[in-house]
């Protein structure tokens, strides 16, 4: 799909960009790095599109959401402040939901926003607030060392982009060898949803008022419906028509109707049937996983934890430096069982 030398060249440029964008001490060319990485990503997409020809490329929303999502992802891994990283991750989640919409997976798009942006990320924000110290009064908010300095940025980026090179080469080879894409979803599920079909046929005037569907079967690619009025209706997607046969059963009274536009299996219905009929056991497993996680989280967070010896020592020296009259011996044993920092200071005074 794309010349391999060009691909590898762009990946090298992208890797250099990501390395520059990672946080470091001293000269920190984050904006430049993000620009270089973004340029490489944009060129990669451009060449992919040029090679494919204009009629095959995805629509404009794909490019929009992909750019926002990847930009957010880059910012998640490069922003020194955890809160901002979490907020940028929400941006990535929203962009992914947009991509899901373009892929006509509406249910998953909204489930993603509700579960990820609504629940998981809020939990993250809570923990960030629980596990960071507010700057003490009169002190400037300084970032911790481990936030401002990335660990081995060059080695990690090399590893990552070698993996990316392997992945993209395999992907371009593999997608060409896939079987032809599926064209339509068969209407077999319509036979399993007689009430919905009944409602739609009734509102479109195809079925007589007050009639209900007695049985619906999937026969040779068509849905055969028998109504309580003795009428027989055949939904034939291939010719896009509905044929109704009168109660006397002769084809001479056969009536043809256009296919109502709403008469199709929607995304949520397809997903529901797939989830609950084709994979019923997995739901149970998911429930058990969630229950165990909940129990685990409750048990873990109830535990009383003491500061370990190193941290205790560091805290004592810090307090002693802040206040020369503080004497670790006089108040011993210092109550360092988990307490907010403010009560610790009161103990020091």
């Amino acid at each position, binding site marked *: 799909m794309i010349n391999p030398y060009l691909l590898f060249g762009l990946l090298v440029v992208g890797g250099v960009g990501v390395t520059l964008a990672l946080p470091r001490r001293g000269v920190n060319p984050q904006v430049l790095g993000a620009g270089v990485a973004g340029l490489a990503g944009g060129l990669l997409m451009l060449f992919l599109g040029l090679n494919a020809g204009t009629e095959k490329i995805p629509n404009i929303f794909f490019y929009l959401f992909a750019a926002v999502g990847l930009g957010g992802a880059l910012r998640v891994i490069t922003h020194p402040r955890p809160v901002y990283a979490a907020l940028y991750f929400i941006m990535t*989640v929203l962009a992914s939901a947009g991509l899901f919409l373009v892929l006509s997976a509406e249910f998953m798009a909204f*489930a993603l926003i509700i579960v990820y942006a609504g629940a998981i990320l809020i939990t993250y924000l809570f923990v960030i607030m*629980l596990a960071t110290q507010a700057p003490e009064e009169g002190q400037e908010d300084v970032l911790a060392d481990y936030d401002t300095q990335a660990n081995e940025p060059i080695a*990690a980026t090399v590893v*990552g982009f070698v993996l990316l090179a392997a992945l993209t080469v395999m992907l371009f080879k593999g997608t060409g060898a896939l079987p032809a894409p599926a064209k339509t979803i068969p209407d077999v599920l319509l036979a399993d949803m007689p009430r919905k079909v009944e409602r739609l046929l009734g509102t479109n005037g195809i079925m007589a008022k007050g009639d209900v569907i007695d049985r619906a079967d999937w026969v040779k690619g068509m849905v055969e419906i028998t109504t309580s009025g003795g009428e027989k209706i055949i939904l034939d997607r291939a010719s896009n028509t509905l044929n109704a046969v009168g109660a006397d059963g002769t084809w001479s009274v056969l009536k043809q109707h256009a296919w109502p536009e709403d008469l199709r299996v929607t995304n949520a219905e397809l997903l529901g049937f797939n989830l609950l009929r084709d994979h019923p056991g997995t739901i149970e497993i998911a429930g058990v996983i969630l229950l165990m996680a909940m129990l685990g989280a409750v048990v873990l967070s109830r535990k009383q934890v003491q500061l370990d010896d190193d941290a205790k020592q560091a805290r004592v020296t810090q307090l002693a430096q802040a206040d020369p009259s503080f004497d670790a011996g006089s108040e011993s044993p210092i109550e360092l069982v988990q307490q907010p920092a403010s009560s610790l200071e009161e103990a020091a005074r």
Partner: protein
Amino acid sequence: MMNLTLAQSGFPEVMSQVTLGHYLVVAAIMFVLGMIGFLTRRNLIIMFLCTELMFQAAGIALIAFGRYHLDFSGQTFVIFVLTVAAAEAAMALALIVLLYRRKESLNAEEWKDLEG
């Protein structure tokens, strides 16, 4: 014969292999960004955010494949990815709070020697 695609307006066109390739490239880039973040950042919370980023990328790839084959097992898989991500976030964050109480730091390197 009328236009087949008209009736199934939810799925207006066949997804080409080229389009699938675009989505997979985006998923691959996002996954690798998450991996680089996990390897380089030293803040425990950001490391777990990076794993979530990798889950996202896997989800995009699964849904793109599902759309290509019009097979909804792809979306079912993403539901379970979401479940596992939620379970993982709950456990990981409980652990992080516990670790923070002990060392008053989120630095992953503080925990380089652990004793049972």
